[in-house]
Protein backbone atom coordinates (compact mmCIF):
# COMPACT_ATOMS: atom_id res chain seq x y z
CA UNK A 1 0.00 0.00 0.00
CA UNK A 2 2.81 2.41 0.87
CA UNK A 3 5.22 1.22 -1.76
CA UNK A 4 4.71 4.33 -3.87
CA UNK A 5 6.43 6.22 -1.07
CA UNK A 6 9.76 4.44 -1.36
CA UNK A 7 11.14 5.96 -4.57
CA UNK A 8 10.99 9.37 -2.90
CA UNK A 9 13.53 8.27 -0.32
CA UNK A 10 15.99 9.14 -3.08
CA UNK A 11 16.74 12.83 -3.10
CA UNK A 12 16.86 12.88 -6.86
CA UNK A 13 13.31 11.50 -7.23
CA UNK A 14 11.95 13.92 -4.64
CA UNK A 15 13.69 16.79 -6.37
CA UNK A 16 12.19 15.83 -9.72
CA UNK A 17 8.72 15.59 -8.17
CA UNK A 18 9.22 18.96 -6.50
CA UNK A 19 10.24 20.58 -9.76
CA UNK A 20 7.06 19.26 -11.33
CA UNK A 21 4.86 20.41 -8.45
CA UNK A 22 6.43 23.82 -7.89
CA UNK A 23 4.76 25.72 -10.76
CA UNK A 24 1.41 24.20 -9.81
CA UNK A 25 1.64 25.87 -6.42
CA UNK A 26 3.63 28.97 -7.24
CA UNK A 27 1.71 30.30 -10.24
CA UNK A 28 -1.82 29.80 -8.89
CA UNK A 29 -0.55 31.06 -5.53
CA UNK A 30 0.71 34.30 -7.02
CA UNK A 31 -2.34 34.81 -9.22
CA UNK A 32 -4.81 34.09 -6.44
CA UNK A 33 -2.90 36.38 -4.08
CA UNK A 34 -3.15 39.19 -6.60
CA UNK A 35 -6.86 38.57 -7.11
CA UNK A 36 -7.63 38.02 -3.44
CA UNK A 37 -5.71 41.02 -2.15
CA UNK A 38 -7.16 43.45 -4.66
CA UNK A 39 -10.65 42.03 -4.20
CA UNK A 40 -10.33 42.16 -0.43
CA UNK A 41 -8.80 45.61 -0.23
CA UNK A 42 -10.75 47.45 -2.89
CA UNK A 43 -13.94 45.61 -3.82
CA UNK A 44 -15.22 43.83 -0.73
CA UNK A 45 -17.80 45.96 1.11
CA UNK A 46 -16.79 47.59 4.40
CA UNK A 47 -17.97 45.93 7.59
CA UNK A 48 -20.92 47.71 9.16
CA UNK A 49 -19.30 47.55 12.61
CA UNK A 50 -15.58 47.63 12.02
CA UNK A 51 -15.47 49.78 8.91
CA UNK A 52 -12.42 49.30 6.74
CA UNK A 53 -10.21 47.88 9.47
CA UNK A 54 -11.72 44.43 9.05
CA UNK A 55 -9.82 44.08 5.76
CA UNK A 56 -6.92 42.74 7.82
CA UNK A 57 -8.95 39.51 7.93
CA UNK A 58 -7.84 38.76 4.37
CA UNK A 59 -4.28 38.12 5.52
CA UNK A 60 -4.92 37.27 9.16
CA UNK A 61 -7.26 34.30 8.76
CA UNK A 62 -5.37 32.53 5.93
CA UNK A 63 -2.10 32.83 7.86
CA UNK A 64 -3.74 31.50 11.03
CA UNK A 65 -5.38 28.58 9.23
CA UNK A 66 -2.21 27.47 7.49
CA UNK A 67 -0.01 27.99 10.51
CA UNK A 68 -1.95 25.12 12.05
CA UNK A 69 -2.37 23.20 8.78
CA UNK A 70 1.34 23.14 8.09
CA UNK A 71 2.10 22.04 11.62
CA UNK A 72 0.00 18.95 10.93
CA UNK A 73 1.72 18.41 7.59
CA UNK A 74 5.08 18.79 9.34
CA UNK A 75 4.07 16.12 11.83
CA UNK A 76 2.96 13.83 9.00
CA UNK A 77 6.35 14.29 7.35
CA UNK A 78 7.91 13.50 10.73
CA UNK A 79 5.86 10.32 11.01
CA UNK A 80 6.94 9.22 7.55
CA UNK A 81 10.55 10.01 8.44
CA UNK A 82 10.39 7.90 11.58
CA UNK A 83 8.33 4.97 10.36
CA UNK A 84 9.95 4.43 6.96
CA UNK A 85 13.32 5.98 7.85
CA UNK A 86 13.12 8.27 4.86
CA UNK A 87 15.64 11.06 4.95
CA UNK A 88 13.89 13.32 2.51
CA UNK A 89 10.90 13.38 4.87
CA UNK A 90 13.18 14.68 7.64
CA UNK A 91 14.32 17.38 5.29
CA UNK A 92 10.67 18.18 4.59
CA UNK A 93 10.08 18.66 8.33
CA UNK A 94 12.89 21.19 8.39
CA UNK A 95 11.68 22.92 5.26
CA UNK A 96 8.16 23.29 6.67
CA UNK A 97 9.11 24.51 10.15
CA UNK A 98 10.43 28.01 9.27
CA UNK A 99 7.58 28.68 6.85
CA UNK A 100 5.05 27.58 9.45
CA UNK A 101 6.72 29.73 12.08
CA UNK A 102 6.56 32.73 9.75
CA UNK A 103 2.86 32.08 9.10
CA UNK A 104 2.26 31.94 12.85
CA UNK A 105 4.17 35.18 13.29
CA UNK A 106 2.10 36.82 10.53
CA UNK A 107 -1.13 35.77 12.18
CA UNK A 108 0.07 37.13 15.53
CA UNK A 109 1.30 40.39 14.06
CA UNK A 110 -1.78 41.06 11.96
CA UNK A 111 -3.93 40.09 14.93
CA UNK A 112 -2.15 42.64 17.10
CA UNK A 113 -2.47 45.31 14.43
CA UNK A 114 -6.16 44.51 14.12
CA UNK A 115 -6.65 44.44 17.86
CA UNK A 116 -5.26 47.90 18.42
CA UNK A 117 -8.01 49.86 16.61
CA UNK A 118 -10.81 47.39 17.47
CA UNK A 119 -10.13 46.45 21.07
CA UNK A 120 -7.84 49.34 21.98
CA UNK A 121 -4.98 47.01 22.85
CA UNK A 122 -2.25 45.20 20.97
CA UNK A 123 -2.61 42.02 22.91
CA UNK A 124 -5.27 40.32 24.96
CA UNK A 125 -4.99 36.90 26.53
CA UNK A 126 -7.72 35.64 24.29
CA UNK A 127 -7.88 31.89 23.78
CA UNK A 128 -7.01 32.00 20.12
CA UNK A 129 -4.17 34.47 20.53
CA UNK A 130 -2.72 32.43 23.35
CA UNK A 131 -2.82 29.12 21.54
CA UNK A 132 -1.29 30.77 18.49
CA UNK A 133 1.56 32.04 20.66
CA UNK A 134 2.11 28.53 22.00
CA UNK A 135 2.10 27.22 18.43
CA UNK A 136 4.92 29.64 17.64
CA UNK A 137 6.88 28.24 20.60
CA UNK A 138 6.33 24.72 19.29
CA UNK A 139 7.66 25.67 15.85
CA UNK A 140 10.66 27.39 17.42
CA UNK A 141 11.31 24.31 19.54
CA UNK A 142 11.42 22.06 16.47
CA UNK A 143 13.81 24.43 14.72
CA UNK A 144 16.02 24.93 17.78
CA UNK A 145 16.27 21.19 18.42
CA UNK A 146 17.41 20.54 14.85
CA UNK A 147 20.01 23.30 14.96
CA UNK A 148 21.40 22.03 18.26
CA UNK A 149 22.51 18.72 16.75
CA UNK A 150 25.79 18.57 14.89
CA UNK A 151 24.78 15.42 13.05
CA UNK A 152 22.06 16.36 10.58
CA UNK A 153 20.48 12.93 10.50
CA UNK A 154 20.13 12.85 14.30
CA UNK A 155 18.82 16.41 14.34
CA UNK A 156 16.25 15.62 11.68
CA UNK A 157 15.02 12.57 13.54
CA UNK A 158 14.86 14.40 16.87
CA UNK A 159 12.92 17.25 15.26
CA UNK A 160 10.53 14.72 13.71
CA UNK A 161 9.86 13.13 17.10
CA UNK A 162 9.25 16.53 18.66
CA UNK A 163 6.88 17.50 15.85
CA UNK A 164 4.90 14.32 16.47
CA UNK A 165 4.76 14.86 20.22
CA UNK A 166 3.64 18.41 19.56
CA UNK A 167 0.84 17.42 17.21
CA UNK A 168 -0.66 15.10 19.82
CA UNK A 169 -0.52 18.02 22.22
CA UNK A 170 -2.00 20.69 19.97
CA UNK A 171 -5.67 19.77 20.48
CA UNK A 172 -5.09 19.43 24.22
CA UNK A 173 -3.39 22.81 24.38
CA UNK A 174 -6.06 24.34 22.19
CA UNK A 175 -9.00 23.17 24.27
CA UNK A 176 -7.31 23.79 27.60
CA UNK A 177 -6.60 27.36 26.59
CA UNK A 178 -10.24 27.82 25.56
CA UNK A 179 -11.37 26.41 28.84
CA UNK A 180 -8.93 28.61 30.73
CA UNK A 181 -10.25 31.61 28.87
CA UNK A 182 -13.89 30.95 29.73
CA UNK A 183 -12.94 30.26 33.32
CA UNK A 184 -11.39 33.67 33.72
CA UNK A 185 -13.72 36.52 33.00
CA UNK A 186 -13.69 36.94 29.25
CA UNK A 187 -13.30 40.47 28.09
CA UNK A 188 -16.33 41.39 26.02
CA UNK A 189 -14.13 42.98 23.38
CA UNK A 190 -12.83 39.61 22.27
CA UNK A 191 -16.35 38.60 21.35
CA UNK A 192 -16.30 41.14 18.52
CA UNK A 193 -14.01 38.89 16.57
CA UNK A 194 -15.89 35.65 17.10
CA UNK A 195 -18.62 36.93 14.83
CA UNK A 196 -16.43 36.07 11.88
CA UNK A 197 -16.45 32.44 12.80
CA UNK A 198 -20.16 32.07 12.33
CA UNK A 199 -21.20 31.22 8.78
CA UNK A 200 -23.24 34.41 8.73
CA UNK A 201 -20.34 36.28 7.14
CA UNK A 202 -21.57 38.03 4.01
CA UNK A 203 -20.69 36.22 0.77
CA UNK A 204 -19.12 39.39 -0.66
CA UNK A 205 -16.59 39.15 2.16
CA UNK A 206 -16.39 35.37 2.25
CA UNK A 207 -15.33 34.88 -1.36
CA UNK A 208 -12.21 37.05 -1.31
CA UNK A 209 -11.34 35.38 1.98
CA UNK A 210 -11.64 31.92 0.41
CA UNK A 211 -9.50 33.08 -2.51
CA UNK A 212 -6.86 34.30 -0.11
CA UNK A 213 -6.93 31.08 1.88
CA UNK A 214 -6.09 29.12 -1.26
CA UNK A 215 -3.59 31.77 -2.31
CA UNK A 216 -1.69 31.48 0.96
CA UNK A 217 -1.63 27.72 0.68
CA UNK A 218 -0.08 28.01 -2.77
CA UNK A 219 2.50 30.56 -1.69
CA UNK A 220 3.48 28.72 1.48
CA UNK A 221 3.69 25.37 -0.33
CA UNK A 222 5.84 26.94 -3.06
CA UNK A 223 8.18 28.41 -0.44
CA UNK A 224 8.42 25.05 1.32
CA UNK A 225 9.23 23.30 -1.97
CA UNK A 226 11.92 25.87 -2.73
CA UNK A 227 13.49 25.37 0.69
CA UNK A 228 13.26 21.59 0.40
CA UNK A 229 14.89 21.68 -3.04
CA UNK A 230 17.78 23.75 -1.73
CA UNK A 231 18.20 21.37 1.15
CA UNK A 232 18.17 18.33 -1.15
CA UNK A 233 20.80 19.91 -3.37
CA UNK A 234 22.94 21.01 -0.44
CA UNK A 235 23.20 17.58 1.12
CA UNK A 236 23.97 15.89 -2.19
CA UNK A 237 26.19 18.58 -3.66
CA UNK A 238 28.90 16.03 -4.41
CA UNK A 239 26.59 13.80 -6.39
CA UNK A 240 26.45 14.11 -10.18
CA UNK A 241 22.71 14.76 -10.40
CA UNK A 242 22.89 17.75 -8.07
CA UNK A 243 25.94 19.15 -9.85
CA UNK A 244 24.20 18.79 -13.17
CA UNK A 245 21.22 20.75 -11.92
CA UNK A 246 23.34 23.39 -10.28
CA UNK A 247 25.48 23.85 -13.39
CA UNK A 248 22.84 23.91 -16.07
CA UNK A 249 20.45 25.72 -13.82
CA UNK A 250 21.35 29.30 -14.60
CA UNK A 251 19.01 29.64 -17.52
CA UNK A 252 16.72 26.70 -17.11
CA UNK A 253 16.03 26.94 -13.42
CA UNK A 254 15.88 30.66 -12.93
CA UNK A 255 12.17 30.65 -13.70
CA UNK A 256 11.57 27.57 -11.58
CA UNK A 257 13.42 28.83 -8.52
Amino acid at each position, binding site marked *: MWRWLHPYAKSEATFALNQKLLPWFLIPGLLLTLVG*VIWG*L*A*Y*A*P*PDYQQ*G*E*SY*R*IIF*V*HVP*AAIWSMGFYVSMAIAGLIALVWQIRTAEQAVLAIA*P*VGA*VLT*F*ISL*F*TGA*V*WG*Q*PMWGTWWVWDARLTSQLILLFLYLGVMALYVAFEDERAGGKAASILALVGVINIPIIHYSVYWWNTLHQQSTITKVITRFESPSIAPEMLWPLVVNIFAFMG*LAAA*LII*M*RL*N*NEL*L*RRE*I*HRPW*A*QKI*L*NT*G*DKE*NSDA*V
Partner: protein
Amino acid sequence: MQFDSWSAFIAMGGYGVYVWSAFFVTFLCFGLLALEAVWRRTKLRDEARKQQARQQRIEKAKRES
Protein backbone atom coordinates in the same frame (compact mmCIF):
# COMPACT_ATOMS: atom_id res chain seq x y z
CA MET B 1 -14.86 49.49 -6.19
CA GLN B 2 -15.61 50.61 -2.68
CA PHE B 3 -13.47 53.74 -2.68
CA ASP B 4 -14.05 57.03 -4.45
CA SER B 5 -10.45 58.13 -4.74
CA TRP B 6 -6.89 56.95 -4.24
CA SER B 7 -6.56 58.99 -1.08
CA ALA B 8 -9.65 57.31 0.35
CA PHE B 9 -8.14 53.96 -0.58
CA ILE B 10 -4.90 54.78 1.22
CA ALA B 11 -6.71 56.20 4.25
CA MET B 12 -8.94 53.10 4.62
CA GLY B 13 -11.53 55.04 6.56
CA GLY B 14 -8.95 56.14 9.12
CA TYR B 15 -7.51 52.66 9.62
CA GLY B 16 -4.89 53.01 6.90
CA VAL B 17 -1.87 52.53 9.16
CA TYR B 18 -3.22 49.29 10.57
CA VAL B 19 -4.50 47.75 7.37
CA TRP B 20 -1.49 48.66 5.25
CA SER B 21 1.08 47.66 7.87
CA ALA B 22 -0.63 44.27 8.24
CA PHE B 23 -0.55 43.66 4.48
CA PHE B 24 2.97 45.06 4.17
CA VAL B 25 4.43 42.86 6.90
CA THR B 26 2.66 39.77 5.56
CA PHE B 27 4.06 40.09 2.09
CA LEU B 28 7.42 41.29 3.35
CA CYS B 29 7.68 37.99 5.27
CA PHE B 30 6.79 35.98 2.18
CA GLY B 31 9.20 38.05 0.10
CA LEU B 32 12.05 37.54 2.54
CA LEU B 33 11.46 33.79 2.62
CA ALA B 34 11.48 33.67 -1.17
CA LEU B 35 14.59 35.83 -1.41
CA GLU B 36 16.38 33.68 1.10
CA ALA B 37 15.57 30.56 -0.91
CA VAL B 38 16.81 32.13 -4.15
CA TRP B 39 19.93 33.47 -2.45
CA ARG B 40 20.73 30.07 -1.01
CA ARG B 41 20.37 28.50 -4.43
CA THR B 42 22.89 30.92 -5.93
CA LYS B 43 25.28 30.17 -3.10
CA LEU B 44 24.90 26.45 -3.77
CA ARG B 45 25.68 27.09 -7.44
CA ASP B 46 28.88 28.90 -6.51
CA GLU B 47 29.87 26.11 -4.21
CA ALA B 48 29.24 23.46 -6.85
CA ARG B 49 31.30 25.42 -9.36
CA LYS B 50 34.17 25.75 -6.92
CA GLN B 51 34.11 22.06 -6.15
CA GLN B 52 34.15 21.11 -9.80
CA ALA B 53 37.04 23.46 -10.48
CA ARG B 54 38.95 21.85 -7.66
CA GLN B 55 38.11 18.40 -8.96
CA GLN B 56 39.40 19.33 -12.39
CA ARG B 57 42.61 20.75 -10.95
CA ILE B 58 43.17 17.54 -9.04
CA GLU B 59 42.58 15.43 -12.12
CA LYS B 60 44.84 17.61 -14.19
CA ALA B 61 47.59 17.32 -11.61
CA LYS B 62 47.15 13.56 -11.60
CA ARG B 63 47.45 13.35 -15.37
CA GLU B 64 50.53 15.50 -15.45
CA SER B 65 52.35 13.65 -12.74
